[in-house]
């Protein structure tokens, strides 16, 4: 029985048409991300590239028990714990300040956003001038009688990278908060104003409540961005940084060099699971919090 295109069920037609349009993207995603990731999962459970017998959780135990991996995971955790709260709170503060009636507002927005567009590789030179043992920051601190600190080769190294991270990411987060702030119903704030609510009261009881989904989104985004800070660290310190700056990507680069595909796969799967859990938390909380203000 032949059916012509016109006789086909309308819904099915829509479905097939949109499949045609999305097709290239689906194929690309399958080919370059999803199927190979499935194979990565498979590799993480076998013993070797040649002898592919089931290894159970051995690769995972190797990765998780590896001293270098533990250092990298701890450093990443420390970095996230320092950088993420600052990235959220400071970005919110900037957004709130830019909301008040001050002169040069749009210029300030441009200035805060500009680091996002400056390639980090371009800025590395000046960062080294600032934070070298003989650098400008030490020179400045010397005035106050502070001893020389070798910023990138001591336990202070995290501070340098946190500053670079904030410099780069605050603008993006600030725009997200500004967009959310402008979506708060004006009527509500005006009513509060008429009833004599202070600015602090308005902020904590009205604005923050409406912002809660955005706060969560920015938090998750910042956590994920904090996994990407390897780029900055690599450009600042190369492949072999001070131990306090050794990140998970450094650990994985070594395995790429040894073409240790099994453990590499296990590490990738572990990270993927961590990210998926984070996103799941975001979705659950956004659903729970978002509903009562959206309606």
């Amino acid at each position, binding site marked *: 029985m032949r059916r012509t295109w016109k006789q086909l069920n309308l819904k099915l037609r829509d479905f097939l048409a949109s499949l045609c349009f999305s097709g290239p993207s689906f194929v690309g*995603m399958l*080919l370059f991300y999803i199927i190979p990731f499935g194979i990565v999962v498979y590799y993480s459970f076998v013993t070797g590239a040649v002898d592919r017998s089931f290894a159970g959780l051995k690769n995972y135990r190797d990765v998780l028990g590896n001293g270098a991996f533990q250092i990298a995971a701890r450093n990443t955790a420390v970095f996230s714990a320092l950088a993420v709260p600052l990235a959220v709170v400071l970005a919110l503060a900037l957004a709130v300040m830019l909301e008040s009636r001050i002169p040069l507002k749009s210029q300030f927005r441009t200035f805060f956003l500009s680091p996002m567009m400056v390639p980090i*590789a*371009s800025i590395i030179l000046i960062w080294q001038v600032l934070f*070298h043992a003989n650098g400008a920051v030490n020179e400045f601190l010397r005035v106050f009688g502070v001893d020389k600190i070798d910023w990138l080769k001591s336990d202070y190294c995290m501070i340098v990278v946190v500053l670079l991270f904030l410099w780069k990411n605050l603008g993006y987060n600030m725009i997200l908060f500004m967009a959310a702030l402008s979506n708060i119903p004006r009527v509500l704030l005006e009513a509060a104003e008429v009833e004599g609510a202070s600015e602090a009261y308005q902020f904590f009881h009205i604005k923050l409540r409406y912002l809660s989904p955005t706060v969560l989104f920015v938090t998750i985004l910042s956590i994920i961005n904090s996994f990407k800070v390897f*780029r900055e660290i690599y450009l600042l310190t190369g492949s072999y940084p001070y131990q306090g700056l050794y990140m998970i990507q450094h650990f994985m680069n070594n395995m790429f060099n040894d073409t240790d595909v099994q453990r590499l796969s296990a590490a990738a799967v572990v*990270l993927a699971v961590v990210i998926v859990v984070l996103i799941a938390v975001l979705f659950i909380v956004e659903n729970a919090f978002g509903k009562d203000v959206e309606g």
Partner: protein
Amino acid sequence: MRRKRYFSRTVCFLLCALFAVLFLMPTVLTITNAFMTQSEITANYGQVFQNANDGKSYISKRINLKFIPDKVSFTQFFTVLLKSPDYLLKFWNSVLFTVPIVLAELVVASLAAYGFTRWRGRIRDSLFFFYVILMLMPYQVTLVPNYLVSKWLGVYNTRWAILLPGAFAPFSVFLLTKFMRRIPVAVIESAKLDGANEWHIFWNICLPQCRSALYSIAILVFIDNWNMVEQPLILLEDASLQPLSMFLSTINQGEIGIAFAAAVIYMIPALLLFLHGESYLVEGIAHSGSVKG
């Protein structure tokens, strides 16, 4: 009450000004220092870049951070642009990675976003969720599959190892879908009643309405790829294929005057794009503010 408002506004302004200075300082310093003569910059920063010392130049004992050069000089720029083909080659490499990826992503994403817009339902939502998850995966996760695929296809250590996965990156699909879904269904339905086919609706109705969205996505994708470090580090062994971002991190050993000039030349395309398209960029970021389709 009014006086209190005025006071808090002044504090806000001063804080913003302070932050603005901190945010601008690294960029401005890099740009102004690029105009210093080689001898001046060696004298100022010789203490930091040890290898820059050729034993002959004067180096000040203390580091000397300066905004304004004593003598404005353009020779470093000429050296970068005319005398050292290495920089230009690496710059060209960056262009050859970034421009094709931006164009390919725009084509793939606008088709896919249209598909996601026209098709509503459970399966669509879960597929879209999948894109979101992939979009949020850091390089540590995606590079392992990319590495394996590049080996199978035999493109490891060639440009294609980076271009092919780059063309299908999920971020642009995610963002463009959010823009396209704002086009009212009624517009599409009425076009259909008038006898327009799907391609016609896509090309003549949906795409023109997304022009600013396409521009903001192009900017975001551009800056991400202009900055690339992770992919070339893993997928390219050949030094001659590396983009300028990788190269800049290694040149501080050489003449620092030239390094500063190269850094400035490298940031020019990104800064021009920013100055021209800032409002589009802001709109694009604002729309990425929720993971829901």
